[in-house]
């Protein structure tokens, strides 16, 4: 019974199983503690290997173009400026470049003949060339950018323009989906509105499920940031799971697949406008510092200044996938939170009618979780709490799909307060089985966040539970309920028919 599952555990930990196979594994693990222990081992190995690789991966050297420098140096901003369609921006620039490259380009054979020499001079030339290239291209890229944004923002003023830009990447995705699947299908609408409504509905929704929302500006800004920097070349191909290959238009001829998008643009724009107008404040135009993941130093406002020399180093388009309910059916209206693994920026998206979501992100390592009414919180790869969730590189991940579990029938309720008795928002509250001796059994199996009033609702099955809270789950200590806050002296909370489990108030240790 276990053997076929065991053989898949390495792939399960790697996240490379098909959705169906992964589900079978998850189902089995829910029932079989021996396999769960084995799976935990693999997950620990996987996490260690990833950390090790992440330590080595961050310093990507500057891009060196493959052709001799002069071919690029001639690609002046003027050559890039005429980029016609707003959406094509950088991509169109790419084609212009390509054309340029082609005219002065070697055919394969002569290129190969020249290579030894070229390679020798490249070491010297590429360094200089890269600098020259960046210097000559940066203004061009900025020109494209304003080109691209122009039509979208022209009819609107000030803050709205910013809001518009913030909402752009998701709209683009959805427009593409429209061509990919069924133009005008209902599912698309949810997706289009994701960026704006997610920010809009967030405060209301957050209250409903007991979680404090960050200011909407924080959510919207990263998206806007991406929109300005990287949307066109990056989103199109890298949102693999949602974009069919024939409409993922990075390639030789973007004109054909891209153009049909244009007539559709005003429509989503109009639809997004009413909801985004009142919600997204004008600050969205200036990305707050927290937005840029720490390992992406060029993704800062300076990088966009007209004098900038450095190009955006990484352009990771989106974390995208599908959220399913407990029966495996696509779940609409679930909220997907992506946060920089080391803390800070958080981006949110809502699933459309087909359960799809896409969160525009920048490069680096991310944690993603889903919150949906009636379902337990879930972090990527089926983890119920962030304590054992694995961060992953958005660029490396394929579709990030979720199969949510229905929320347990009972709930522990209470407040999280600090030493002075003031409510603490956004504290993580977890419940763990009371077995203090067993290794895996001690691991928390349910999680909730406190809301602005410090209140939390933590769904758990009937039984006895240890409850703990922490503000800093990235390595911070947990404060357990009862006793002196330590696990050793923690009290269990009985949960069931005649055990009211309200008023479990937790005091965070300073």
């Amino acid at each position, binding site marked *: 019974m276990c053997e076929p599952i065991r053989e898949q555990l390495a792939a399960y930990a790697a996240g490379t199983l098909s959705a169906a196979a992964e589900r079978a594994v998850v189902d089995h693990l829910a029932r079989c503690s021996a396999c769960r222990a084995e799976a935990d081992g693999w997950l620990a190995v996987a996490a260690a290997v990833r950390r090790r690789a992440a330590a080595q991966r961050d310093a990507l050297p500057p891009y060196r173009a493959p052709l001799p420098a002069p071919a690029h140096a001639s690609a002046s901003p003027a050559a890039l400026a005429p980029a016609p369609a707003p959406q094509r921006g950088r991509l169109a620039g790419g084609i212009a470049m390509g054309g340029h490259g082609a005219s002065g380009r070697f055919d394969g054979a002569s*290129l190969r003949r020249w290579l030894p020499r070229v390679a020798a001079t490249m070491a010297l030339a590429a360094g200089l060339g890269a600098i020259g290239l960046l210097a000559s291209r940066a203004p061009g890229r900025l020109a494209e950018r304003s080109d691209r944004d122009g039509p979208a923002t022209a009819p609107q003023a000030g803050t709205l323009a910013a809001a518009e830009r913030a909402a752009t990447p998701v709209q683009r995705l959805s427009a593409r989906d429209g061509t990919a699947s069924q133009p005008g299908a209902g599912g698309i609408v949810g997706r289009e509105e994701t960026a704006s409504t997610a920010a809009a509905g967030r405060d209301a929704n957050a209250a409903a499920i007991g979680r404090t929302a960050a200011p909407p500006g924080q959510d919207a800004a990263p998206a806007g940031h991406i929109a300005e920097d990287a949307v066109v070349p990056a989103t199109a191909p*890298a949102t693999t799971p949602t974009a069919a290959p024939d409409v993922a238009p990075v390639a030789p001829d973007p004109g054909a697949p891209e153009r049909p998008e244009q007539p559709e643009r005003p429509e989503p724009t109009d639809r997004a406008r009413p909801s985004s107008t009142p919600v997204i404040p004008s600050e969205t135009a200036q990305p707050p510092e927290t937005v840029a993941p720490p390992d992406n130093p060029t993704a800062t406002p300076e990088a966009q200044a007209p004098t900038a020399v450095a190009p955006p180093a990484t352009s990771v388009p989106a974390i995208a996938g599908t959220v399913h309910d407990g029966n495996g059916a696509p779940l609409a209206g679930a909220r997907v939170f992506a946060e920089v693994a080391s803390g800070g920026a958080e981006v949110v998206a809502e699933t459309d009618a087909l359960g799809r979501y896409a969160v525009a992100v920048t490069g680096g390592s991310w944690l993603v979780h889903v919150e949906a009414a009636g379902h337990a919180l879930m972090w990527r790869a089926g983890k119920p709490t962030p304590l054992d969730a694995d961060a992953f590189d958005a660029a*490396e991940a394929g579709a990030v799909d979720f199969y949510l579990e229905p929320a347990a029938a009972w709930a522990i309720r209470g407040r999280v307060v600090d030493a002075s008795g003031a409510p603490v928002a956004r504290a993580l509250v977890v419940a763990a089985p009371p077995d203090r001796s067993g290794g895996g059994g001690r691991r928390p199996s349910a999680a909730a966040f406190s809301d602005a009033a410090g209140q939390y609702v933590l769904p758990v099955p009937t039984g006895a539970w240890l409850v703990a809270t922490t503000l800093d789950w990235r390595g911070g200590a947990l404060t357990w309920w009862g006793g002196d806050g330590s696990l050793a002296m923690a009290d269990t909370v009985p949960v069931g028919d005649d055990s009211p489990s309200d008023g479990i108030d937790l005091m965070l240790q300073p």
Partner: protein
Amino acid sequence: MSPLVLAMTSTAAEDPDLALVHAMADGDVDAHRILYERHGRGVLAFIAARVGDAGAAEELLHDVMLAAWNGAAGFRGRSRVKTWLLVIAHNRVCNELRRRVRLDIVPAPEAVAGARDGVAKGRPGALDEQIDLAAAIDRLPAGQREVLDLVFAQGLGQEEAADVLGVAVGTVKSRLNRAKAQLREHLQDADGAHGGHDV
């Protein structure tokens, strides 16, 4: 589940990088840069884990990307583009290591220390155990480490990892299992540490 959803959730079928390679074959430098931005880090990590020092890894990465540019027209899409890049990288690394053996060059020790620092920065929680496990991974035979890296850090399927290394899938599986067996005692530490995290 509707066929549409199924189609959308199946990731293996379409490779979003394929269009980039086709564009590269047509001389589109921007496509090359996008490919670089998308996979440079991953390939760099793969190379750096083997050659040890950052400078050499950077040079090799450049070689790999140059080779991809030159070979773009010949790419037939039999594997994912990423796998293809890693195959090239693997071969370059093997050449580099052979060259070093010939020239009697050993990797700079600070490269390894640097990797540790990175690990230490990763998550302040269970530091010692992480370093412990990382060190245990360092001590694994190179072949096992390589497989761990391809499967977990690069996210390749086991068949793809086998393609990159030019070995049978069975070899990949057995290396994975042997690596895990060797790491077991550190895993138990890590498990204990995880319990410690709870406490």
